[in-house]
Protein backbone atom coordinates (compact mmCIF):
# COMPACT_ATOMS: atom_id res chain seq x y z
CA UNK A 1 0.00 0.00 0.00
CA UNK A 2 1.32 3.48 -0.77
CA UNK A 3 -0.13 5.66 1.98
CA UNK A 4 2.89 7.53 3.33
CA UNK A 5 1.24 8.68 6.57
CA UNK A 6 -0.07 5.22 7.41
CA UNK A 7 3.32 3.65 6.68
CA UNK A 8 5.26 6.09 8.84
CA UNK A 9 2.71 5.87 11.67
CA UNK A 10 2.81 2.08 11.64
CA UNK A 11 6.60 2.08 11.72
CA UNK A 12 6.54 4.53 14.64
CA UNK A 13 3.88 2.59 16.57
CA UNK A 14 5.17 -0.96 16.09
CA UNK A 15 8.04 -0.95 18.61
CA UNK A 16 6.18 0.97 21.36
CA UNK A 17 3.26 -1.49 21.10
CA UNK A 18 5.62 -4.45 21.55
CA UNK A 19 7.30 -2.61 24.44
CA UNK A 20 3.92 -1.96 26.07
CA UNK A 21 3.16 -5.67 25.64
CA UNK A 22 6.32 -6.58 27.56
CA UNK A 23 5.42 -4.02 30.25
CA UNK A 24 1.95 -5.55 30.66
CA UNK A 25 3.46 -9.05 30.62
CA UNK A 26 6.03 -8.49 33.37
CA UNK A 27 4.18 -5.84 35.36
CA UNK A 28 1.14 -8.11 35.79
CA UNK A 29 2.42 -9.09 39.24
CA UNK A 30 2.22 -5.50 40.47
CA UNK A 31 -0.69 -3.93 38.61
CA UNK A 32 -3.42 -4.87 36.17
CA UNK A 33 -2.19 -7.02 33.34
CA UNK A 34 -0.74 -10.45 32.75
CA UNK A 35 -0.22 -13.01 30.07
CA UNK A 36 -3.63 -12.88 28.40
CA UNK A 37 -3.67 -9.12 27.88
CA UNK A 38 0.02 -8.99 26.90
CA UNK A 39 -0.46 -11.77 24.35
CA UNK A 40 -3.27 -9.83 22.71
CA UNK A 41 -1.14 -6.65 22.61
CA UNK A 42 1.74 -8.53 20.93
CA UNK A 43 -0.72 -9.87 18.36
CA UNK A 44 -2.15 -6.38 17.77
CA UNK A 45 1.28 -5.03 16.78
CA UNK A 46 1.54 -7.61 14.00
CA UNK A 47 -2.10 -7.12 12.96
CA UNK A 48 -1.37 -3.39 12.55
CA UNK A 49 1.60 -4.35 10.39
CA UNK A 50 -0.62 -6.62 8.28
CA UNK A 51 -3.26 -3.88 7.87
CA UNK A 52 -0.70 -1.42 6.57
CA UNK A 53 1.72 -3.55 4.53
CA UNK A 54 -0.51 -6.47 3.58
CA UNK A 55 -0.71 -9.98 5.00
CA UNK A 56 1.99 -11.42 2.75
CA UNK A 57 4.59 -8.99 4.12
CA UNK A 58 3.66 -9.87 7.71
CA UNK A 59 3.94 -13.57 6.89
CA UNK A 60 7.52 -12.93 5.82
CA UNK A 61 8.24 -11.40 9.24
CA UNK A 62 6.40 -14.05 11.24
CA UNK A 63 5.45 -17.12 9.19
CA UNK A 64 2.54 -19.37 10.13
CA UNK A 65 4.92 -22.29 10.75
CA UNK A 66 6.64 -20.31 13.52
CA UNK A 67 3.25 -19.42 15.04
CA UNK A 68 2.17 -23.06 15.13
CA UNK A 69 5.37 -23.95 16.99
CA UNK A 70 4.97 -20.97 19.35
CA UNK A 71 1.39 -22.01 20.19
CA UNK A 72 2.62 -25.40 21.35
CA UNK A 73 5.67 -23.95 23.12
CA UNK A 74 3.48 -21.51 25.06
CA UNK A 75 1.19 -24.20 26.38
CA UNK A 76 4.07 -26.60 27.10
CA UNK A 77 5.87 -23.79 28.98
CA UNK A 78 2.90 -23.60 31.33
CA UNK A 79 2.45 -27.34 31.74
CA UNK A 80 6.23 -27.83 31.87
CA UNK A 81 6.48 -25.52 34.89
CA UNK A 82 4.01 -27.84 36.60
CA UNK A 83 6.02 -30.91 35.60
CA UNK A 84 9.22 -29.30 36.93
CA UNK A 85 7.63 -28.71 40.32
CA UNK A 86 6.49 -32.35 40.30
CA UNK A 87 10.04 -33.49 39.51
CA UNK A 88 11.26 -31.36 42.44
CA UNK A 89 8.98 -33.35 44.70
CA UNK A 90 5.98 -31.05 45.14
CA UNK A 91 2.48 -31.04 43.67
CA UNK A 92 1.68 -29.99 40.08
CA UNK A 93 2.15 -26.17 39.83
CA UNK A 94 3.17 -25.86 43.52
CA UNK A 95 5.75 -23.15 42.80
CA UNK A 96 7.28 -23.08 46.29
CA UNK A 97 9.39 -26.09 45.26
CA UNK A 98 11.31 -23.93 42.77
CA UNK A 99 13.14 -22.10 45.60
CA UNK A 100 12.67 -24.45 48.56
CA UNK A 101 14.79 -22.58 51.16
CA UNK A 102 13.30 -19.12 50.53
CA UNK A 103 11.96 -17.29 53.54
CA UNK A 104 9.54 -15.13 51.57
CA UNK A 105 8.11 -17.61 49.03
CA UNK A 106 10.32 -16.43 46.15
CA UNK A 107 9.42 -19.65 44.30
CA UNK A 108 5.84 -18.39 43.92
CA UNK A 109 7.12 -15.28 42.17
CA UNK A 110 9.36 -17.24 39.78
CA UNK A 111 6.63 -19.77 39.05
CA UNK A 112 4.03 -17.12 38.27
CA UNK A 113 6.40 -15.25 35.94
CA UNK A 114 7.20 -18.48 34.07
CA UNK A 115 3.56 -19.48 33.80
CA UNK A 116 2.44 -16.01 32.65
CA UNK A 117 5.13 -16.04 29.98
CA UNK A 118 3.71 -19.31 28.68
CA UNK A 119 0.22 -17.77 28.62
CA UNK A 120 1.47 -14.70 26.75
CA UNK A 121 3.27 -16.69 24.05
CA UNK A 122 0.35 -19.09 23.55
CA UNK A 123 -2.28 -16.32 23.38
CA UNK A 124 -0.25 -14.14 20.98
CA UNK A 125 0.47 -17.05 18.64
CA UNK A 126 -3.13 -18.30 18.69
CA UNK A 127 -4.65 -14.86 18.05
CA UNK A 128 -2.31 -14.30 15.11
CA UNK A 129 -3.06 -17.79 13.77
CA UNK A 130 -6.78 -17.09 13.82
CA UNK A 131 -6.21 -13.69 12.19
CA UNK A 132 -3.95 -15.16 9.46
CA UNK A 133 -6.47 -17.84 8.60
CA UNK A 134 -9.47 -15.53 8.47
CA UNK A 135 -7.72 -12.79 6.51
CA UNK A 136 -5.76 -15.09 4.22
CA UNK A 137 -8.92 -16.58 2.74
CA UNK A 138 -9.75 -13.76 0.35
CA UNK A 139 -7.72 -11.38 -1.80
CA UNK A 140 -7.30 -7.83 -0.50
CA UNK A 141 -10.41 -5.72 -0.91
CA UNK A 142 -10.53 -2.45 -2.82
CA UNK A 143 -10.53 0.93 -1.11
CA UNK A 144 -13.96 1.70 -2.57
CA UNK A 145 -15.43 -1.64 -1.48
CA UNK A 146 -16.01 -0.51 2.12
Amino acid sequence: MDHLILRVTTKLMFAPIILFGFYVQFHGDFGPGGGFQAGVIFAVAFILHAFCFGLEETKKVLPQKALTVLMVIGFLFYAGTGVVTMLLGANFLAYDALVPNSTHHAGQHYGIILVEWGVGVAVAATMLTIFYHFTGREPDIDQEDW
Partner: protein
Amino acid sequence: MTEFETVFSPIIFLDLALLTMLFLVAIAMLRSRHLFGVVMLSGIYSLLSAAFFVSLDAVDVAFTEAAVGAGISTVLMLSGMLLTARREKPKTPGRAPVALLAVLATGAALFYATIDMPAFGDPNSPANSAVGQDYVDRAAGEIPMPNIVTSILASYRGFDTMGEVMVIFTAGVAVMLLLGVGSMRGGRRVSDIEADDAADNGKAE
Protein backbone atom coordinates in the same frame (compact mmCIF):
# COMPACT_ATOMS: atom_id res chain seq x y z
CA MET B 1 -21.10 -9.18 61.50
CA THR B 2 -22.40 -5.66 61.07
CA GLU B 3 -25.13 -4.79 58.67
CA PHE B 4 -23.77 -3.26 55.46
CA GLU B 5 -25.34 -0.11 54.10
CA THR B 6 -24.73 1.18 50.61
CA VAL B 7 -23.30 4.68 50.69
CA PHE B 8 -24.72 7.07 48.16
CA SER B 9 -22.00 8.48 45.95
CA PRO B 10 -22.12 10.58 42.80
CA ILE B 11 -20.35 7.71 40.98
CA ILE B 12 -23.79 6.19 40.57
CA PHE B 13 -24.63 8.80 37.92
CA LEU B 14 -21.56 7.72 35.95
CA ASP B 15 -22.67 4.07 36.22
CA LEU B 16 -26.18 4.98 35.09
CA ALA B 17 -24.84 6.94 32.12
CA LEU B 18 -22.59 4.03 31.06
CA LEU B 19 -25.39 1.47 31.43
CA THR B 20 -27.76 3.67 29.43
CA MET B 21 -25.19 3.95 26.64
CA LEU B 22 -24.66 0.15 26.72
CA PHE B 23 -28.43 -0.30 26.37
CA LEU B 24 -28.65 2.15 23.46
CA VAL B 25 -25.69 0.54 21.65
CA ALA B 26 -27.27 -2.89 22.06
CA ILE B 27 -30.56 -1.65 20.58
CA ALA B 28 -28.69 -0.01 17.69
CA MET B 29 -26.86 -3.30 17.00
CA LEU B 30 -30.16 -5.18 16.92
CA ARG B 31 -31.76 -2.74 14.50
CA SER B 32 -28.87 -2.26 12.07
CA ARG B 33 -28.58 -4.44 8.98
CA HIS B 34 -25.20 -3.07 7.92
CA LEU B 35 -22.70 -5.64 9.19
CA PHE B 36 -19.71 -3.25 9.21
CA GLY B 37 -21.68 -0.91 11.48
CA VAL B 38 -22.70 -3.81 13.72
CA VAL B 39 -19.06 -4.91 14.15
CA MET B 40 -17.98 -1.36 15.02
CA LEU B 41 -20.88 -1.02 17.48
CA SER B 42 -19.85 -4.28 19.16
CA GLY B 43 -16.37 -2.80 19.63
CA ILE B 44 -17.95 0.29 21.20
CA TYR B 45 -20.07 -1.95 23.41
CA SER B 46 -16.93 -3.72 24.68
CA LEU B 47 -15.17 -0.42 25.33
CA LEU B 48 -18.17 0.93 27.25
CA SER B 49 -18.36 -2.23 29.38
CA ALA B 50 -14.62 -1.90 30.03
CA ALA B 51 -15.28 1.62 31.33
CA PHE B 52 -18.08 0.22 33.47
CA PHE B 53 -15.74 -2.43 34.93
CA VAL B 54 -13.27 0.32 35.87
CA SER B 55 -16.02 2.10 37.75
CA LEU B 56 -16.69 -1.22 39.57
CA ASP B 57 -12.96 -1.28 40.61
CA ALA B 58 -12.28 -4.38 38.49
CA VAL B 59 -9.32 -3.01 36.54
CA ASP B 60 -7.95 -6.42 35.53
CA VAL B 61 -11.27 -7.44 33.98
CA ALA B 62 -11.58 -4.02 32.34
CA PHE B 63 -8.11 -4.36 30.80
CA THR B 64 -8.96 -7.79 29.41
CA GLU B 65 -12.29 -6.57 28.06
CA ALA B 66 -10.65 -3.59 26.36
CA ALA B 67 -7.84 -5.68 24.84
CA VAL B 68 -9.76 -8.81 23.88
CA GLY B 69 -13.33 -7.53 23.48
CA ALA B 70 -12.80 -4.14 21.90
CA GLY B 71 -9.47 -4.86 20.22
CA ILE B 72 -8.94 -8.32 18.86
CA SER B 73 -12.60 -9.44 18.59
CA THR B 74 -13.45 -6.45 16.43
CA VAL B 75 -10.53 -7.25 14.12
CA LEU B 76 -11.49 -10.93 13.92
CA MET B 77 -15.15 -10.05 13.30
CA LEU B 78 -14.10 -7.69 10.51
CA SER B 79 -11.94 -10.34 8.86
CA GLY B 80 -14.72 -12.87 9.34
CA MET B 81 -17.14 -10.39 7.73
CA LEU B 82 -14.95 -10.28 4.61
CA LEU B 83 -15.76 -13.96 4.03
CA THR B 84 -19.50 -13.28 3.94
CA ALA B 85 -21.95 -10.62 2.79
CA ARG B 86 -21.74 -6.97 3.89
CA ARG B 87 -25.44 -6.72 4.67
CA GLU B 88 -27.74 -8.90 6.66
CA LYS B 89 -30.70 -10.24 4.69
CA PRO B 90 -33.92 -8.43 5.63
CA LYS B 91 -36.15 -10.62 7.72
CA THR B 92 -39.92 -10.67 7.44
CA PRO B 93 -41.20 -9.76 10.87
CA GLY B 94 -43.48 -12.44 12.25
CA ARG B 95 -45.28 -12.68 15.54
CA ALA B 96 -44.26 -15.38 18.00
CA PRO B 97 -46.50 -15.03 21.06
CA VAL B 98 -45.03 -18.05 22.89
CA ALA B 99 -41.48 -16.76 22.53
CA LEU B 100 -42.50 -13.26 23.65
CA LEU B 101 -44.27 -14.73 26.69
CA ALA B 102 -41.24 -16.87 27.58
CA VAL B 103 -38.88 -13.89 27.30
CA LEU B 104 -41.16 -11.66 29.40
CA ALA B 105 -41.56 -14.35 32.09
CA THR B 106 -37.79 -14.98 32.27
CA GLY B 107 -37.10 -11.25 32.42
CA ALA B 108 -39.61 -10.76 35.21
CA ALA B 109 -38.10 -13.66 37.16
CA LEU B 110 -34.59 -12.19 36.78
CA PHE B 111 -35.79 -8.77 37.97
CA TYR B 112 -37.49 -10.45 40.95
CA ALA B 113 -34.25 -12.28 41.78
CA THR B 114 -32.23 -9.04 41.93
CA ILE B 115 -34.22 -8.00 45.02
CA ASP B 116 -32.51 -10.79 47.01
CA MET B 117 -29.03 -10.04 45.72
CA PRO B 118 -26.52 -8.60 48.20
CA ALA B 119 -25.63 -4.92 47.77
CA PHE B 120 -22.57 -4.03 45.73
CA GLY B 121 -19.46 -4.24 47.91
CA ASP B 122 -21.23 -5.97 50.81
CA PRO B 123 -18.46 -7.75 52.79
CA ASN B 124 -20.98 -10.24 54.21
CA SER B 125 -22.16 -11.46 50.81
CA PRO B 126 -21.33 -15.13 50.05
CA ALA B 127 -18.93 -14.17 47.25
CA ASN B 128 -16.85 -11.95 49.55
CA SER B 129 -17.06 -13.81 52.87
CA ALA B 130 -16.14 -17.46 52.18
CA VAL B 131 -13.36 -18.41 49.75
CA GLY B 132 -12.69 -14.83 48.63
CA GLN B 133 -11.96 -13.66 52.19
CA ASP B 134 -9.72 -16.71 52.66
CA TYR B 135 -7.65 -15.75 49.61
CA VAL B 136 -7.41 -12.13 50.77
CA ASP B 137 -6.23 -13.24 54.22
CA ARG B 138 -3.67 -15.77 53.01
CA ALA B 139 -2.26 -14.18 49.85
CA ALA B 140 -0.24 -11.48 51.63
CA GLY B 141 1.66 -14.08 53.65
CA GLU B 142 1.99 -16.81 51.05
CA ILE B 143 2.67 -15.00 47.78
CA PRO B 144 5.13 -12.07 47.62
CA MET B 145 3.23 -10.08 44.97
CA PRO B 146 1.01 -7.05 45.46
CA ASN B 147 -1.56 -7.90 42.77
CA ILE B 148 -3.85 -10.39 44.44
CA VAL B 149 -5.70 -11.04 41.17
CA THR B 150 -2.54 -12.45 39.60
CA SER B 151 -1.84 -14.50 42.74
CA ILE B 152 -5.26 -16.13 42.56
CA LEU B 153 -5.21 -16.55 38.77
CA ALA B 154 -1.73 -18.01 38.39
CA SER B 155 -1.07 -19.69 41.73
CA TYR B 156 -4.19 -20.64 43.72
CA ARG B 157 -6.14 -21.32 40.53
CA GLY B 158 -3.13 -22.23 38.39
CA PHE B 159 -4.69 -25.43 37.12
CA ASP B 160 -7.83 -23.58 35.96
CA THR B 161 -5.72 -21.05 34.08
CA MET B 162 -3.89 -23.90 32.36
CA GLY B 163 -7.30 -25.08 31.21
CA GLU B 164 -8.03 -21.60 29.83
CA VAL B 165 -4.78 -21.61 27.84
CA MET B 166 -5.76 -25.05 26.57
CA VAL B 167 -9.14 -23.64 25.44
CA ILE B 168 -7.41 -20.84 23.47
CA PHE B 169 -4.96 -23.35 21.99
CA THR B 170 -7.87 -25.59 20.94
CA ALA B 171 -9.63 -22.62 19.30
CA GLY B 172 -6.50 -21.90 17.26
CA VAL B 173 -6.18 -25.54 16.20
CA ALA B 174 -9.88 -25.65 15.25
CA VAL B 175 -9.54 -22.55 13.05
CA MET B 176 -6.46 -24.05 11.41
CA LEU B 177 -8.32 -27.28 10.68
CA LEU B 178 -11.43 -25.51 9.35
CA LEU B 179 -9.84 -22.75 7.25
CA GLY B 180 -6.25 -23.83 6.71
CA VAL B 181 -6.90 -26.42 4.01
CA GLY B 182 -3.53 -25.60 2.39
CA SER B 183 -1.63 -27.58 4.95
CA MET B 184 -3.88 -30.61 4.51
CA ARG B 185 -3.05 -30.67 0.79
CA GLY B 186 0.62 -31.09 1.48
CA GLY B 187 1.33 -27.39 2.12
CA ARG B 188 1.01 -26.39 -1.54
CA ARG B 189 -0.97 -23.32 -2.54
CA VAL B 190 -3.91 -24.77 -4.47
CA SER B 191 -7.05 -23.02 -5.69
CA ASP B 192 -10.27 -24.99 -5.58
CA ILE B 193 -10.74 -24.96 -9.37
CA GLU B 194 -7.31 -26.46 -10.01
CA ALA B 195 -7.95 -29.10 -7.36
CA ASP B 196 -11.26 -30.05 -9.04
CA ASP B 197 -9.54 -30.26 -12.43
CA ALA B 198 -6.85 -32.47 -10.98
CA ALA B 199 -9.51 -34.72 -9.48
CA ASP B 200 -11.31 -34.93 -12.86
CA ASN B 201 -8.06 -35.77 -14.68
CA GLY B 202 -7.39 -38.50 -12.15
CA LYS B 203 -10.78 -40.05 -12.90
CA ALA B 204 -10.30 -39.83 -16.71
CA GLU B 205 -7.00 -41.67 -16.49
